[in-house]
């Protein structure tokens, strides 16, 4: 594939949708090619050895233009700043002499073989191997320096490969670390977060627009994730809302809201008390303080009115009641959104199971109705659409939770409910097996395709609207 071409997502020839972003998936080999290509581009303008060019690029995190600029302005300074010679000598092991002593193992004399970088610090071969292997084991690569105290000289790639030449496994690991560092050092690259996936993704969408254009990328392994926060695909909710929501769910902060709504604290010892019956004359189990449940005042002031607190209308008790009902309303609001969010998450899981069942179903239909494999694809395509919509619906509830009320929100909620209804209908249709007395296979196929197309249209409508709204700053969000 050409270096500057991006793979289109979601089908091949469609025009890019407003919520889609350009990205490119790299396998480990592509990554090597990419690194070499950048080095190639810079080597001749810099007129340096390949080794030095590579190290310079790595030192400045592959910022080609700024490297070129600073190099042209101050050639020696740029080299000195990263501690590199123009043409590093070829690494070689040399025989020791009378004056040689390895500062690491204290071996000395002419029997030893040593290596020295251009800084002149000499260490014996075994120590160099142990040192570099240890660093590679820790995940280091090009940042490995001469082992001497406070020496800034970079070991370099060629010497490292030379030292590890007899240890193939370690050498491979070194090369892996180099690639790992390449992806980690470039802000436009990211590893796919799926376990054991070795693909990396390049996405050029500028960081400043990540909140309005959610950079959802699709790895070749099937994982869809947000390039910004690395969370699983969370379109259409922006990262900031997702992180607030996840924190909220994790904190279980609603438990404390429930406590707030259903219990009161003993005025004296602050024990949490839930009243589950009886009269208003409370005696705290902990400190035996006696108070009125309704007005929270000391019981002694109440006289004998056990079931009627005549102090109910006083301002202080009014305020207390207001705060209790407000906190209860907030809890109900959260639960409203959470139930729906959770429902779509569960349904998405079921949809994955449905996919397995659908594959069986497709087999069955193929055999029963002598249809070709391609002709029964409509079922799995419908399930794909379902999964997509479930995910979007799920995150749309997070968006809704934080969205301020108003006309804009009403429009959003209408779109949401349209998509939700259509999705449920499609789900029902796909789930039901074909029966003798049901519609014919041709009719069933037509219904599924019609429904899928409709759902897809609704999906595109809501995503287009939300994306436009984010970009136009039309949505107002509130944090708690």
């Amino acid at each position: 594939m050409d270096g500057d071409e991006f793979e289109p997502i979601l089908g091949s020839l469609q025009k890019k949708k407003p919520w889609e972003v350009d990205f490119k998936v790299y396998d480990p080999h592509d990554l090597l090619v990419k690194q070499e290509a950048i080095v190639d581009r810079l080597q001749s303008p810099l007129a340096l050895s390949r080794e030095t060019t590579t190290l310079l690029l790595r030192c400045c995190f592959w910022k080609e233009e700024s490297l070129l600029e600073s190099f042209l302005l101050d050639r020696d300074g740029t080299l000195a700043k990263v501690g590199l010679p123009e043409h590093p000598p070829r690494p070689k092991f040399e025989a020791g002499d009378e004056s040689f002593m390895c500062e690491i193992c204290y071996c000395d004399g002419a029997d030893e073989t040593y290596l020295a970088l251009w800084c002149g610090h000499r260490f014996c071969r075994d120590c160099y191997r142990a040192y570099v292997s240890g660093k590679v084991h820790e995940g280091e690569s090009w940042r490995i320096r001469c082992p001497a105290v406070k020496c800034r000289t970079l070991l370099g790639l060629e010497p490292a490969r030379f030292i590890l030449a007899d240890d193939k496994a370690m050498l491979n690991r070194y090369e892996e670390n180099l690639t790992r560092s390449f992806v980690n050092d470039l802000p436009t690259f990211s590893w796919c977060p799926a376990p054991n996936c070795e693909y990396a993704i390049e996405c050029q969408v500028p960081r400043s627009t990540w909140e309005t254009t959610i950079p959802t990328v699709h790895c070749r392994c099937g994982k869809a994730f947000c390039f910004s926060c690395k969370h699983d695909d969370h379109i259409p909710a922006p990262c900031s809302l997702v992180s607030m929501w996840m924190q909220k769910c994790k904190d279980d902060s609603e438990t404390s809201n429930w406590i707030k709504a259903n219990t009161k604290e003993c005025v004296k010892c602050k024990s949490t008390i839930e009243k589950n019956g009886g009269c208003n004359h409370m005696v705290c189990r902990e400190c035996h303080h006696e108070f009125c449940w309704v007005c929270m005042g000391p019981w002694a002031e109440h006289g004998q009115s056990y079931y009627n607190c005549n102090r109910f209308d006083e301002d202080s008790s009014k305020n207390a009641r207001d705060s209790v009902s407000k906190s209860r309303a907030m809890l109900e609001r959260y639960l409203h959104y959470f139930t729906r969010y959770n429902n779509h998450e569960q349904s998405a899981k079921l949809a994955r199971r449905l996919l397995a069942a659908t594959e069986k179903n497709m087999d069955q239909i193929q055999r029963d109705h002598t249809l070709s494999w391609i002709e029964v694809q409509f079922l799995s395509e419908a399930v794909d659409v379902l999964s997509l919509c479930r995910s979007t619906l799920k995150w749309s509830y997070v968006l809704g939770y934080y969205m301020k009320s108003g006309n804009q929100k009403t429009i959003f909620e209408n779109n949401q409910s349209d998509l939700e209804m259509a999705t449920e209908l499609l789900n029902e249709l796909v789930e039901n097996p074909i029966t003798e007395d049901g519609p014919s296979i041709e009719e069933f196929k037509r219904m599924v395709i019609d429904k899928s197309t409709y759902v897809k249209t609704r999906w595109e409508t809501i995503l287009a609207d939300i994306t436009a709204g984010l970009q136009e700053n039309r949505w107002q969000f509130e944090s708690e």
Partner: protein
Amino acid sequence: MADVPKRILKEIERLNRDPVPGIEVNTIEDNIRYFNVIMCGPSKSPYEGGRFKLELFLPEEYPMSPPKVRFLTKMYHPNIDKLGRICLDILKDKWSPALQIRTVLLSIQALLSAPNPDDPLANDVADQWKTDEKLAIQTATEWTQKYAIEVWAKNPEVKP
């Protein structure tokens, strides 16, 4: 002691032959990788006159990994926490296998002369150092008196 690297034996030999001024390094019988250290507080510092106990251990990977060093005497110092752990770059990422027990101990001694409250390990001490350096130095002097001078006067023959 079966597999003691030549390097460790040589370092011990050199430390015995040519001791570091102001620092005593004592080996113990049953573990050649463990050392009891007594460090004199550097002059013109709040630690002057104190004799501070440290333990030093050379891990299996030494010298590819740094030694583990910890103060046993209570210290009032922004880069030393209450467990005696020391925040010093050469004991962590700036470690070089060409460093030795000798150079490590000298660096720790230098840290006593030049506390670095901007890279603290003990946050409360570092804050004190930054807000009221005079008071911090006074506290350090008091601690030195109490834990690193008087202790020795009471039990002169106790070896750490």
